[in-house]
């Protein structure tokens, strides 16, 4: 939409304007859910399972109920309500059995958090432990203990997902393209390797928090840190069979999400406690420890890639088998599996492809959406694999990538034809390659090697991602004009730090030709007042809500022109406007100010016409299809954002310690709406990707207990870890159906950083790494070819042989 607008014709779009949401944040006045105070507020705590798998024999809550200050105690026995976004498999509280260490089995609401905690400790639960299944490959075996024996009875979205009852497979996504046998026959070289990634936590700085109030007659209000208010409402209403208009979900400022707050979380439990406590509002805020072990994480992954390639570097076939370690519940993991199924090869053309992507239930914390899902994880193996093949062929890895890169005329894995409007991954690779002076070491770098004794390696990796969303994903935006011709924008896409509201304000300002200070985007989201939006996920906000904003602004102007036409006795087609007035094009002196049209125009005698000006814009993804369940063929992608990273890394060959010196990252953003927010997404995403690559990941003991559920042992990167140089580069191949040609770039900076780091380290010192994360000791072991000890509770040294 408006994709061919020239840069010089744009006033607000493309400029690094100030963010519209920071003033409250930098002064400490922004209210997040945990900051809200209300009369009669109670505080909740949960009782959690000390076993990865067990039957619940009995729960005794009597002592807890008798404790002064306790208002409600609740167990799973009372709540036969199931939740699930795609596959409805999870009770609000564990019922009958527990499926992971840390799962909530009971909860208490009390006057204070301390009383609630004391009451939780008074709850007595008797368990009968069972043998857990802790790795996804073991879970795949025929005789594996079942995490969900009732899988066959669960509801799920049948058009999209394929659970296999009687197994631990929550979903099997298949991709079949071309003739895989022939593809391998045509190959000169076949390379087959295994890779793995652990579970990883999102770590939003604000832990999950919800306040629920369930009044008589099912009048329900939820205040929550969720990313997607309408999805919280939808799933809540499904689970409790209440009408949508009885449930109001309110999202104030959100302290980061990264996918971890995309679905429904603590809200149902807070509401059920409120119902039991006579309708008093109940607040349930996760501790940091609960953030790791009660709430969902990113699924782990064990996978095998087999690639056939000709001597000239052309890939002929690729077969991939992916076992997603989804943990105890399906949540988003089934859709992560699906997304990886249709895009797993990266931004490369694979003429003959065969992919089996399995969501495996295990007795571990469950997996959910995490920034770039299905791509960050798989890009690790794919990008390591590409380098490995290139080295085998003695072809430069960048040239190998360029040979196989998707380009106009290429067919994606699902059979979509790439056009010159799709984006340009080769330009992204070339841009970062130039930026890091790929191919050799500079004089300064050689001097640095000499000075430090470190070895410097470089790598270029490429990536792509399209929003993983239903083909019919929709949104709407409303713009209301105020009496003084300022406007207020309402939408339910939430501002979670990504800068969406600033971009929306810029788009509205551009369309209305009003200065930015006359545009306000209402900063909280309320399902009673905002128009529908599916979810704040998938880097789809700029395309869908951006388009809806353009349409809403045009609708507002159309309505203003209708009234102005009557006032000015002119046809709306003969009208134009500036930031103050609507005027007749051929008699510019004949004009009426917006401020006199905003809430209806009144003639001097009191007669009036028009009315409050409200613009409405609806937008729905168009032309997308569900994928064929047998072949994976179809059109899943709203837009593909391509990108590339170039990394310069130095490694100490004696110890395996390494530093990331420089990262350049390029994305085909279509059109950069705000270069400062784009840079913020790039730098922040790249660093989050480095965290995933370098140090983050869950470690379990033999019984499935999470060993590192705190910042002490599960670190995230700090300011001391920031590479010396980080460069963000934009390529702009306009997206025809993007707002001003824009594509999303929110998730993409995080993708393929891990593979880039692994490749740069390999190129520096020869360490061949296949497991994430890459810690100094892993590099040291790989350099010295010392076998890695089994990663407990994950691979456990077993090879992946389906």
């Amino acid at each position, binding site marked *: 939409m408006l994709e061919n607008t020239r840069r010089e014709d744009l006033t607000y779009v493309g400029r690094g304007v100030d963010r519209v949401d*920071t003033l409250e944040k*930098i*002064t*400490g006045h922004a209210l997040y859910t945990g900051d809200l105070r209300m009369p009669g507020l109670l505080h909740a705590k949960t009782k959690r399972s000390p076993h990865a798998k067990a039957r619940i024999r009995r729960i005794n809550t009597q002592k807890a109920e008798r404790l002064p200050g306790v208002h409600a105690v609740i167990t799973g026995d009372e709540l036969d309500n199931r939740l699930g976004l795609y596959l409805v498999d999870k009770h609000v509280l564990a019922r009958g059995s527990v499926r992971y260490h840390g799962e909530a089995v009971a909860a208490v609401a009390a006057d204070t958090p301390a009383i609630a905690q004391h009451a939780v400790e008074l709850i007595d639960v008797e368990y009968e432990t069972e043998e857990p299944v802790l790795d996804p490959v073991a879970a795949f075996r025929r005789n594996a203990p079942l995490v969900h024996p009732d899988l066959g009875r669960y509801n799920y979205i049948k058009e999209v997902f394929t659970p296999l009852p009687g197994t631990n497979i929550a979903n099997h996504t298949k991709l079949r393209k071309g003739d895989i046998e022939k593809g391998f026959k045509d190959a000169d070289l076949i390379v087959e390797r295994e890779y793995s990634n652990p579970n990883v936590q999102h770590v*939003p*700085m604000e832990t999950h928090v919800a306040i629920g109030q369930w009044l008589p007659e099912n009048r329900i209000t939820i205040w929550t840190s969720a990313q997607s208010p309408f999805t919280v409402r939808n799933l809540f209403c499904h689970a409790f069979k209440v009408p949508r208009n009885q449930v109001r979900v309110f999202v104030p400022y959100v*302290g980061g999400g990264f996918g971890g707050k995309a679905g429904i979380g603590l809200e149902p439990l807070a509401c059920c406690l409120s119902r039991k406590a006579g309708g008093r509002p109940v607040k349930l805020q996760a501790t940091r420890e609960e953030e790791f072990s009660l709430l969902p994480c990113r699924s782990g992954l064990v996978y095998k890639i087999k690639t056939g390639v000709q001597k000239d570097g052309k890939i002929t076939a690729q077969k991939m088998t992916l076992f997603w370690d989804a943990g105890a519940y399906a949540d988003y993991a089934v859709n992560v599996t699906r997304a990886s199924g249709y895009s797993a090869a990266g931004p490369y053309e694979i003429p003959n492809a065969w992919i089996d992507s399995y969501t495996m239930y295990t007795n571990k914390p469950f997996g959910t959406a995490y920034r770039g899902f299905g791509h960050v994880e798989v890009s690790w193996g794919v990008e390591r694999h590409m380098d490995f093949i290139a080295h085998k062929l003695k072809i430069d890895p960048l040239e190998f990538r360029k040979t196989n890169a998707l380009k106009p005329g290429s067919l994606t894995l699902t059979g979509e034809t790439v056009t010159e409007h799709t984006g340009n991954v080769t330009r992204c690779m070339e841009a970062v390659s130039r930026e890091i002076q790929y191919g050799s070491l500079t004089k300064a770098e050689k001097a640095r090697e000499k000075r430090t004794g470190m070895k410097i390696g470089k790598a270029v990796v490429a990536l792509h991602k399209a929003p993983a969303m239903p083909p019919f994903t929709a949104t709407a935006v409303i713009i209301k004009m105020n009496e003084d011709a300022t406007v207020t924008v309402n939408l339910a896409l939430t501002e979670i*730090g990504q800068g969406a509201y600033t971009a929306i304000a810029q788009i509205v300002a551009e369309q209305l030709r009003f200065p930015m200070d006359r545009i306000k985007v209402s900063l909280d989201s309320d399902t009673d007042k905002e128009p529908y939006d599916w979810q704040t996920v998938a880097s789809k906000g700029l395309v869908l809500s951006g388009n809806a904003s353009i349409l809403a602004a045009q609708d507002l102007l159309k309505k203003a022109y209708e009234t102005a036409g009557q006032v000015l006795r002119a046809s709306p087609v003969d009208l134009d406007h500036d930031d103050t007035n609507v005027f007749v094009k051929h008699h510019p002196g004949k004009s009426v100010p917006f401020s006199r049209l905003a809430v209806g125009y009144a003639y001097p005698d009191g007669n009036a016409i028009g009315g409050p000006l409200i613009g409405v814009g609806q937008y729905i993804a168009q032309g997308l299809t569900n994928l064929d369940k047998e072949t994976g063929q179809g059109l899943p992608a709203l837009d593909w954002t391509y990108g590339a990273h170039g990394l310069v890394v130095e490694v100490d060959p004696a110890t395996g310690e390494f530093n990331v010196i420089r990262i350049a990252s390029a994305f085909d953003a279509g059109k950069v709406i705000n*270069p*400062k927010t784009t840079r913020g997404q790039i730098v922040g995403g790249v660093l989050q990707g480095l965290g995933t690559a370098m140090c983050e990941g869950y470690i379990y003991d033999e019984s499935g207990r999470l060993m590192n559920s705190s910042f002490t042992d599960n670190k995230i990167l700090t300011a001391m870890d920031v590479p010396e140089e980080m460069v963000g580069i934009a390529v702009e191949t306009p997206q025809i159906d993007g707002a001003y040609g824009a594509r999303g770039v929110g998730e993409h900076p995080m993708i393929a950083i891990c593979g880039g780091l692994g490749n740069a380290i390999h190129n520096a010192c020869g360490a061949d790494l296949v497991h994430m994360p890459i810690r100094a000791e892993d590099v040291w072991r790989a350099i010295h070819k010392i076998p890695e000890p089994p990663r407990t509770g994950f691979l456990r040294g077993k090879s992946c042989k389906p």
Partner: protein
Amino acid sequence: MRVKATINGRRIERDVPDSITLLHFLREDLGLTGTKEGCGSGECGACTVLMNGRTVNACLVLAAEIDGAVIETIEAESKDGKLSKLQEKFHKHHASQCGFCTPGMVMSLKSLVRENPKPSEEEIREAIDGNFCRCTGYKQIIEAVQDATGQLKKPEDIHYA
């Protein structure tokens, strides 16, 4: 226990239970919710405030310990409706995304700049090493401080290929 303290320039005198933290006291008793809780165990720095001019994690200080102390929180950073220089530069450089770490981050940097008006990049990084930020990648925060201390050579931007 009875404590007397100066909080954001105002004298207070309150009875506080022995067991509550300064963080709890600020947020729950005084309504100063600008100071955030990110972990409750002194690791993430979201609750950083100044106590007698030095940064502390408010989650690790007992309210009872502040008797006689001067406490500064984010709420006092802007005066008479005007942003402080640090806040101004945070705004200008997009140094705050979700904003949850921002109050603690600003307090750590306020303490740094007060003691060291021209901190090097390394000193800035060290000053916020205890303040986790998951959104920004820290770069724009570092640049905001460099700008606030008159040291930013040229504002960094994305390049167009």
